[in-house]
């Protein structure tokens, strides 16, 4: 009996404590978490603005850069950081370059706490959504207006259209460093062997598919996580065919965006190719790396739509005699309304400078260093990809056929380049993937996929909690 009583009173004590446990943090969090952090900003002060120090980096200040560690690594920023540290005209600065593959997850607490780094490469699958941080970023026009380390005005040294992918609501906030060309890639040696010619519009694909089938090959193949590269191909092709008529409704989430005749015509052809058995089935259950190796190593399919990172990505898994080349995505037919050579080319790897970082001038100075001819050429040579700085790739493309064809495509296109931003902007890729997997597997008709993609677009447009950005 005694024991039992003791246990009851102990239980009462615990009960009281538990009640406190439930009530206390509730009150505390309600009061505190509504506004986590704050403060921060402007820690380093500013130095004197001179021609050699255009942003006024304070002497002996520290620069904190966080770089996405993806296909291009982080060493290119590290070597630019060394150049910057050795730059005597800045009066000695120290640069800390850290790498991560989870930009959003890692930097979230620093943004909320008002203590973001001075320079961020906001790239990769876990990058921070633009509409969430737009108001917290510095505009970077002054970087392009300044002179590079060799003394030329930076904006004069760049490819056309490099500002477009980093401009939101008219504010240029992200400097995309690496030039990416979207195209359809193939083995020129395989084409030569078989006497195939490169298609010039979607109308040519069926014949090529037939020829491929005769050789026991497919025309296209895909992997589950990269199914939307076919969406990229379809959308880009439609923009090449019909220009802003297609692009602007898609970018601004129009209610009829996916019903444009150019998109519909291309989808019909793609559906026909799938139904004719020219697209390798089973992609929905295949990892994209494995699928890409089936194209580059086993050469089971002739063509693969992708960005120009594909060469670097598949470097170790490409057949020996595979001379990789690319051509721009194809118009629907011969009557394209855009100038010949128009293509999707956009600068990728967006670098941003948060406004309330401790040393935003230092972040900009590091960018300026990276845009100097020396750093840009070193990047192109090491990564076999051009930066946004022109004339850094020699005629032999450092021995890479794919890099040569990228340079050729960019030269042909000139200023006629465009980009599609809204899919990434609103984080739509994850929801589009199952739809495209299903379509490529032949389980959806053109009407089905149009309705499904339009449904996604409509859902975002009608969701008032998502900040929309008008794209021009």
């Amino acid at each position: 009996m005694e024991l039992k009583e003791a246990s009851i009173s102990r239980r009462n004590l615990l009960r009281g404590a538990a009640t406190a446990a439930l009530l206390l943090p509730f009150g505390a969090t309600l009061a505190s978490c509504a506004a986590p952090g704050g403060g921060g900003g402007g820690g380093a002060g500013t130095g004197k603005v001179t021609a050699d120090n255009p942003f006024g980096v304070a002497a002996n200040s520290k620069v904190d850069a966080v770089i996405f560690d993806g296909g291009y690594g982080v060493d290119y920023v590290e070597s630019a950081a060394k150049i910057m540290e050795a730059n005597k005209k800045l009066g000695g600065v120290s640069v800390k370059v850290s790498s991560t593959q989870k930009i959003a997850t890692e930097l979230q607490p620093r943004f909320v706490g008002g203590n973001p780094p001075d320079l961020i490469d906001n790239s990769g699958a876990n990058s921070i959504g633009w509409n969430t941080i737009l108001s917290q970023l510095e505009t970077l026009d002054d970087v392009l207006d300044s002179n590079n380390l060799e003394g030329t005005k930076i904006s004069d040294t760049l490819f056309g259209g490099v500002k477009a992918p980093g401009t939101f609501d008219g504010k240029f906030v992200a400097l995309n460093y690496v030039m990416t060309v979207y195209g359809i890639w193939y083995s020129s040696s395989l084409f030569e062997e078989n006497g195939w010619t490169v298609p010039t519009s979607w109308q040519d694909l069926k014949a090529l598919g037939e020829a491929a089938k005769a050789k026991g090959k497919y025309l296209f193949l895909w992997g589950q996580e990269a199914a939307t590269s076919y969406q990229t191909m379809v959308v880009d092709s439609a923009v090449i065919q019909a220009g802003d008529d297609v692009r602007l409704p898609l970018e601004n989430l129009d209610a009829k965006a996916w019903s444009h005749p150019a998109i519909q015509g291309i989808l019909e052809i793609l559906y026909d190719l799938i139904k004719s058995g020219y697209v390798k089935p089973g992609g929905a259950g295949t990892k994209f790396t494995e699928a890409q190796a089936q194209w580059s190593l086993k050469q089971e399919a002739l063509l693969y739509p992708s960005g120009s990172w594909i060469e670097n990505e598949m470097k170790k898994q490409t057949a020996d005699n595979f001379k990789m080349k690319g051509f721009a995505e194809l118009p629907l037919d011969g009557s394209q309304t855009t100038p010949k050579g128009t293509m999707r080319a956009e600068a990728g790897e967006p670098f941003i400078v948060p406004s309330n970082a401790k040393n935003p001038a230092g972040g900009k100075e590091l960018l300026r260093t990276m845009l100097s001819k020396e750093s840009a050429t070193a990047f192109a040579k090491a990564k076999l990809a051009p930066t946004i700085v022109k004339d850094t790739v020699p005629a032999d493309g450092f021995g890479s056929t794919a890099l040569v064809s990228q340079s050729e495509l960019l030269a042909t296109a000139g200023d006629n380049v465009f980009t599609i931003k809204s899919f990434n902007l609103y984080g739509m890729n994850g929801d589009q993937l199952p739809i495209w997997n299903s379509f490529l597997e032949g389980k959806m008709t053109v009407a089905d996929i149009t309705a499904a993609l339009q449904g996604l677009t409509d859902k975002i447009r009608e969701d008032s909690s998502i900040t929309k950005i008008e794209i021009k």
Partner: protein
Amino acid sequence: MTLSTTDGGPGSATAAVISAKAGRRKPLRLGGRKLTFDFVSFLLVFLILPLAIFLIFVIGPFAQAVYYAMTDWTGFSPDMKFVALDNFVRLFKDPTFLRAMGNNIILAVIVPLVTLTIALIFASMITIGGPSGGQVRGLKGSSFYRIVSFFPYVIPAIVIGILWSMIYTPSGLLNGLLGLIGIDTNNFAWLGDENTAMGASIFVIVWGMVGFYMVLFIAAIKGVPAETYEAARLDGAGRFRTTVSITLPLIRDNVQTAYIYIGIMALDAFVYMAALNPVRNPSTVVMSQYLYSTAFEKFQFGLASAMGVVLAVITLLFAAVVFVVNWATGGRKDGGRA
């Protein structure tokens, strides 16, 4: 404290002395117990400290998540607007979320049932399923089986996921083996087809989990006196009858605990499902995957927190259902130990 500094007269000093004397005369009490140093330090170390840690690191984040669930927080700014229950209303109108919830419920029903049934069968075989003459013992070589079936549990879940996604791939091991025995699967994409993806995923989870619960049940069965089994055998009970009528009722508590553990795992299932089905197809998407993408792809942390709250409530409900079922099927006769 501040009072005594501003009002430093002799009167207040005497008052302090008096109260101190009174304190010495009448020891402070809590619930009829003297507040000795031993008792207070005991409370401090064994109750207040763990409680504080629990409050700060467990209850605190919970409460915070519940609060965030009622805001439109984007995750990257200190500003947020209170939107009350809007997020929950949106969730229950979102077909993808409802689909994900349905898939989680399928997992929570099937995975524990299949895993624990297999685990119980294996455990019985290894402990009492041996020859029907002589001492009650397991099958020949049972210790070997026990070790082998524990292997999958030693491998991290993410590795299991990657391993099996390679086995299931169209040109993978499974189709190859089926081809060897004469079944041409025509490079079937097991995880790519909506009819097989869920079943294939469930198989992987069960494969990874059976070993652990088998070992758990073996330990429980070893706690049952061998005489019980001998008596059952003398009465002519076969292996199946022994398992259902003797083993199961006697290890009821272990089964209930196992059911709740594995159920919680099935309601989460993030690692397995994300590794096996990186594309969020409607037939396999689970709440935790959708939550992750809402937070870190679409940056709707408020909405994602609401999903977390719903997931937590479903988990609690699941545990409650398991308790009720156990009680209703006869657990109460056990003296209410559950």
